[in-house]
């Protein structure tokens, strides 16, 4: 279990992370999303004890992250898209190092994972592709039989087959009681596996919710009217945006979706369907609300 209370990190005048309070229950998959530079990696780095918090506190598996011995990391697996390797080592040597470092290291599990990922044991880590290095990081992180698994952009750079394999592994681990904290830009995969999610923006958590609730908050009403979208629907309270695609209108509703749907029905649509919005839509909406808007780029 992971608990943070008012956690913050300041670099000079820059507040990289501020006042983050959240609780991740045991055996759950917790997603962290945010724009680039939102403070996700700094937050995870603080959970690992690599970065010292400037304010607040964080406890991982009951231990304070500022604890000097770092003994709690015995039960924490970590995978990142960054090169967290001893580059001069071969795959075999990395495994040997892991075996000597973590007392919970499981050789049988390690061999199984190495075989399933088909990683070449004698190749130096520096000569592996990015995808292979991420796979090796997963082998290490899962072989130490973690109780908490921290993933920072861990699936970026992986091909679709391996990504699916790894997502399955993450779900299996969570099912067996491992707490997973996963920061990613891939919202589709988070939507598939995470139970709760925190949206980071400029170091703060702007929304913390369950994935179901998050999706329930917004709705997409797809409608076709014989004479175009009635102005009453377009201007109805709760309507965030209307996207037009030929005769089909996608009405994105932020609140009071049932009322907007009823209004549509009153105007006699030819076709109407209520759909859930995807996570990406939700994310963009939240970022817009937080003032993180980007102009459309039109290249000459």
């Amino acid at each position, binding site marked *: 279990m992971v608990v943070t209370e008012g956690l913050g990190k300041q670099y000079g005048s820059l507040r990289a992370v501020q006042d983050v309070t959240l609780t991740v229950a045991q055996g759950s998959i917790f997603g962290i999303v945010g724009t680039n530079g939102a403070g996700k*990696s700094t937050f995870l780095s603080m959970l690992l004890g690599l970065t010292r918090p400037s304010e607040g506190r964080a406890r991982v598996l009951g231990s304070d992250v500022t604890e*000097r011995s*770092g003994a709690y*990391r*015995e039960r924490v697996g970590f995978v990142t898209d960054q090169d*967290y*390797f001893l580059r*001069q080592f071969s795959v075999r040597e990395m495994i040997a190092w892991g075996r000597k*470092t*973590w007392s919970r290291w499981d050789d049988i599990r390690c061999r199984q994972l190495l075989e399933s990922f088909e990683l070449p044991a004698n190749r130096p880590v520096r000569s592996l592709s990015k995808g292979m290095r991420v796979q090796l990081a997963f082998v290490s992180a899962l072989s130490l039989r973690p109780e908490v698994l921290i993933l920072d952009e861990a699936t970026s750079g992986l091909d679709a087959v391996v990504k699916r394999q790894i997502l399955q592994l993450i779900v299996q681990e969570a099912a067996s009681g491992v707490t997973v904290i996963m920061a990613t830009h891939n919202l589709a995969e988070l939507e598939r596996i995470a139970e709760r999610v925190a949206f980071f923006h400029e170091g703060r958590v702007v929304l913390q919710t369950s994935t179901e609730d998050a999706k329930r908050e917004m709705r997409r009403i797809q409608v076709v009217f014989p004479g175009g979208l009635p102005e009453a629907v377009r201007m109805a309270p709760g309507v965030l945006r209307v996207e037009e695609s030929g005769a089909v209108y996608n009405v994105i509703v932020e609140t009071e979706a049932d009322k907007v749907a009823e209004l549509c029905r009153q105007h006699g649509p030819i076709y109407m369907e209520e759909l859930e919005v995807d996570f990406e839509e939700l994310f963009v909406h939240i970022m817009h609300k937080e003032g993180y808007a980007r102009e459309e780029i039109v290249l000459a």
Partner: protein
Amino acid sequence: MKKSFWPRGLVYKEWHQQRWMIALFLITMSLLPVFGSIAQEIQVMTGRVQFLGPGVANGTVGWFSQTLLLNPSGYAIGQVPWGTAFLFGAALWSAERRGNNLETVLAGPVSKAAMVRVKWFLGMATIFVFNLPCALLLWLEARGGGLNGMAGNADVWLRLAARWYGSQVGMEWLIFSLAFVAAIGVGRYAISLMWAALALFAPLLLTSAVAFLVQESATPITHYMGKGMEGYVSKDPQTLSSVYATLQTWTMTLDPWSYYGTFNYFYMPQMLDFVLPVGGVLSILLFTASFSLFEHCEVERFRRVFCLRGLGVSSLIIVGVLPAWIFGILRMSSDVQAHIQAMFDHQPWHGPAPMLVFTFYFAGTAILEVLLWIGVRRFLRRRQARSAQVMAVA
């Protein structure tokens, strides 16, 4: 849960990272007497050495070892391992700057304290162990023959070899620990070496500068009278010359090239006995400093400067001071000093002028280095941008 003073994973990692440096240490240490003897034999055989000293049997195998043990300052080759210790101390940390080594290790159940401890003890143990075969070889060679009267007296040579071993280990421990603490501060290999060198030579630099100023205020009476200060009479002989003499003594003592000469066995044998305990105590103090420095420095992603940020630029200032160190060392040679002084004495300007010349020289060097650094950095950035462009297109 594995909790030990020597985390096995760390020891394994250090061995893998540093095995070549350890091998270099073994080579420079163990082969010292062998190389020394061979070089000596070649010199004797080619007739380059005619007189080896009173009571010395020419061309004998033990000659080199005996003279080295009796007079450690006589051979610069004995100081080669000092350089290795210096490189080793910095290498232990600079290796961690490759990739995210440090983060990789500290993301595991490893404390910062354990990391410092393993590295430091590895270095100290390497120095302690690898000097031993060298001392043993020197002892075995020395007892084999050479000096008349003392040849075959195993006890004498054993004592001398033990004393030599102690002083070598003490000196190397100190140099290693200096480079070690400097490398924790900055991480980069070359810069940490420069910082360690500064720490090692700073007293020399300071005393040289002060001595130089005192000397400048004295009136030269002749240039080639003899060595160093004998050529000058102070304006105020009661005070200035005595200050200068004291400073000159300190400078000589701190000069690494004449360091061993000061502790020469024949003149101050008891000093050699103090090198090991003093070196040991200072090393422990430096270890404590490393411990505290590393404990308080953060490991930040994308900010790989270890503790002291922006040291790359400030180290340029140190580079600018490098000529001052060289000058400080050069001035130990009375001939060079006399020539420099003679050069200035023939000019119409006296007094503080030479000091000004050197100041301008150092400042100019520092500015040139900064400009060079900016140029190199721009070039590297452009190259990086170009390769990023190529990657993006690919």
